[in-house]
């Protein structure tokens, strides 16, 4: 547990990662800010070996009762593997951006698992399989997002339009010439790029026709899988006209093309969306709410600058996110602890702060669902409703109860670690607050915490008392409203 309160690096790692393990904080504290940001941004310079640590001593545990741990075919195991990565990765920003894109291109496992001819094991493959571990070489959607976590946004849109899970989720697989399917055509404009209000109903019809023939086919081989195919015979070859520019010359019409060349319609359309100023604005605003603050208005100067970087860099998200993390708004002290933590952020952060010796991530996985965030299964294509919506009473109790379960699980380790800092209730409270690195608490709240430590008998500092009190205090502090902010 860290002792030094170094607020800037804690802030950086809470926002660009999932909080700070003691070893992470020690490493980042030795760097200048720019160096720390570059270390996070250029994560490919750090080995991507986190999965190899699963089941090794010194790391949190996974649990797959009655089965072999199968993260490529059982969704509960895929969820555990992702939590393991969030906790133990040395590339925290890559996992953070993967979560950002998962919410942005929100695709839900449940619909896939229930889709005709798919089922739970295949649905898990399409969401989570690592190509190196899948007999059919399937790369699940989250692996694709991970590979492109700081990639080019236009390329990411093309990848997502061809992604198997997305083609099932938004019904693109049934989008045909005779009967265009509007679902993907609508959402790529409304939720993935420009935002609502920047297109018309006739644009939705036209967008559906652009993607006619972007379907799925089942591969052969030992591990057959649904994979993208451009089905020329199902493509609508007529011209499509939009209410916004498609080409740099301002032309708003995708001209008629032969069926054989018709896939270019979708690529032209995606290029137009990536080039649209509303897309830059939409992304910049979303990044502001994710990385900077959920309090108050969005800073227009930030949006303009990040949008400019988006265009200057040719939609390069590495440049864009670097601009975000180096921005004056990111480092402004007033923006610390101004984001409501997502359940995944809360859960991983509290584990990093408290400890994971002998801890099962299967319990964390279940708790996350009670807090309202099932990984790989957002409620709908708009993703999770963030901010205050995470904080219903039931969800708040679930957070408190996870803190309780974690404190109970780590009680002995906590007691040992706190033993030298438990001469008095005041000393123990200081140690707990240092360890949890929470937002500043009011003096009323710290007084209540001290009252708790003094209650139920005089202070003796006995092993049992310290174990009980440190566990209770960790539970209470991690359950404070202040701790729910990152």
């Amino acid at each position: 547990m860290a002792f030094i309160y170094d607020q800037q690096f804690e802030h950086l790692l809470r926002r660009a990662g999932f909080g700070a393990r003691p070893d992470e904080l020690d490493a980042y504290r030795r760097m200048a800010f720019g160096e720390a940001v570059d270390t996070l941004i250029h994560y490919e310079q750090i080995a991507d070996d986190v999965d190899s640590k699963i089941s090794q001593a010194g790391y949190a545990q996974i649990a797959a009762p009655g089965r072999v741990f199968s993260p490529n075919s059982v969704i509960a195991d895929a969820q555990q593997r992702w939590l393991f990565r969030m906790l133990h990765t040395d590339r925290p920003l890559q996992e953070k951006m993967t979560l950002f894109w998962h919410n942005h291109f929100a695709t839900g496992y449940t619909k896939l698992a229930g889709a005709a001819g798919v089922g739970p094991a295949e649905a898990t493959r399409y969401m989570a399989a690592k190509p190196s571990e899948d007999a059919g070489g399937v790369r699940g959607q989250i692996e694709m997002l991970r590979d492109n976590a700081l990639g080019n946004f236009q390329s990411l849109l093309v990848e997502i339009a061809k992604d198997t899970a997305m083609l099932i989720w938004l019904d693109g697989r049934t989008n045909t010439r005779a009967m265009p399917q509007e679902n993907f055509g609508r959402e790529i404009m409304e939720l993935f790029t420009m935002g609502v209000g920047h297109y018309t109903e006739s644009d939705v019809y036209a967008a559906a026709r652009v993607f006619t023939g972007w379907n799925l086919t089942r591969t052969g081989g030992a591990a057959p899988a649904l994979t993208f195919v451009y089905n020329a015979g199902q493509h609508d070859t007529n011209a499509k006209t939009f209410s916004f520019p498609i080409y740099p010359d301002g032309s708003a019409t995708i001209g008629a093309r032969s069926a054989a060349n018709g896939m270019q319609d979708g690529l032209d359309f995606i290029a137009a969306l990536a080039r649209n100023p509303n897309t830059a604005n939409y992304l910049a605003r979303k990044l502001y709410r994710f990385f900077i603050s959920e309090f108050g208005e969005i800073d227009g100067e930030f949006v303009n600058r990040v949008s400019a970087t988006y265009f200057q860099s040719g939609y390069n998200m590495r440049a864009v996110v670097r601009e975000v993390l180096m921005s004056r708004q990111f480092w402004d002290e007033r923006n610390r602890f101004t984001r409501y933590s997502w359940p995944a952020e809360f859960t991983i952060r509290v584990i990093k702060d408290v400890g994971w010796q002998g801890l099962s991530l299967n319990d964390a996985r279940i708790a996350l669902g009670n807090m309202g965030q099932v990984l790989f299964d957002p409620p709908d294509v708009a993703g999770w409703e963030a901010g205050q919506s995470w904080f219903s009473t039931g969800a708040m109790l679930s957070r408190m109860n996870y803190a309780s379960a974690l404190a109970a699980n780590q009680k002995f380790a906590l007691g040992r670690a706190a033993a030298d800092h438990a001469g008095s209730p005041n000393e123990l409270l200081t140690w707990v607050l240092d360890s949890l690195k929470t937002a500043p608490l009011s003096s009323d709240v710290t007084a209540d915490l001290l009252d708790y430590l003094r209650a139920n008998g005089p202070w003796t500092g006995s092993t049992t008392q310290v174990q009980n009190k440190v566990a209770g205090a960790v539970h209470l502090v991690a359950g404070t409203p202040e701790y729910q902010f990152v």
Partner: protein
Amino acid sequence: MKITRRQFVKGGAAAFTMTFAAPEFLSDLARAQGASVRNLIVLYLSGGNDALSMLVPYNDSFYYSRRGSIAVPAGSVLQIGTDSSGVALGLHPRLTGLRQIFNQGGLALIQRTGYDNQSRSHFQGTDIWSTANPANSTGLGWIGRYLDLLPSPVDPLVGWNTTRDLPRVLQANKVAVPAIPNPAQYSFNSPNAGVEAQVERAAAIRINSHVPVDRPEVAFVYGSAQAAMATLDRVAQVATYTPGGYPNTPFGQAMRAVAGAMVRGIGTKVFYVTTGGFDTHSGQGVNQVNGSYYGLMGILNDGLIAFYNDIRNQGLLGDTLLLTFSEFGRRINENGSAGTDHGAGSLMMAMGGRVNGGFYGTAARLNPDPQNPTLENGGNDVHFAVDFRSVYAQVIDRWLGGNSQNVLSGNFARPDLSFI
């Protein structure tokens, strides 16, 4: 800057707080505020319910010509009569329980509800229905605004949300409506046992009473935590209500919890329930027993009839009004995936012991003539004829005893909508 957090402990106030203890006699307060013992259950069918599959105009030939594979055959519908415009209507064949309630006069079907320039976006559409504000749908919910206008102090259990997250319809300034998806799991745990656990729980209650009034975003979480702590005991009573007869679906279990809250008399006035899966773009499965929409109708029907029978047996039917909404109806034409895309005009239902059952509003004529006044968008979608806010106004004025003009910021009352 390196400082230890010790200085915060010594240094004192990081924020300006005020201590708001939860009222001591919550149950008395609840009793006082619940004196009218009228309950409203708002049921959201999420995804955009296909009204034309639920309430079928089985004599309209265009219904069949425009829906090749997913139309309900005239011989299968549950015929329930003819609306004021002379359109013969029937319920989906799986809705036998709803037909029974309709025939007993406890179900009102309000056709073609909506608003001008209807958003076909799930999210904006849901926000508009939730805020009752088509012009700016990012504010508080219409139920939330109703709760804000109740005299203070408001009992935190005045509302009960059976979903995990806080839906916009319940977002309020002064009231944090508790989210209680499962009353049996609504508890405060401790890493310790016995007296140690008790003092810890007492500490949590005190901690959450110090609301940082200068930081509204943080205060919101305090409000939520405080409401949680203040409602634990009463919710535990509801968890003991476990009658049989409810289907083991999330919707059925949510309706059982609602019945439990009413039977135990814990003072809740407004409940929010949702059941999803209505975004039927493909393989809609209207007619097959294992079809997708057929299954949705089964979940809905079985949960509602179980609830209806339960509260009738408990003598609570006259205290109960259930109101459904969905963000839009669906396109009239079947698409290429044997499903339907996002459309416009929607169907609302009101169910309860004091409902004046029957049809309200009129059915659309499905002739795709662009001049057809009951359609819009070039004859592709059903055009609304009843402003959904008029339905809300009836509920606020005639059931909840509120003032709809204050809640809805306008006069939407329509006396002819006499379903309640």
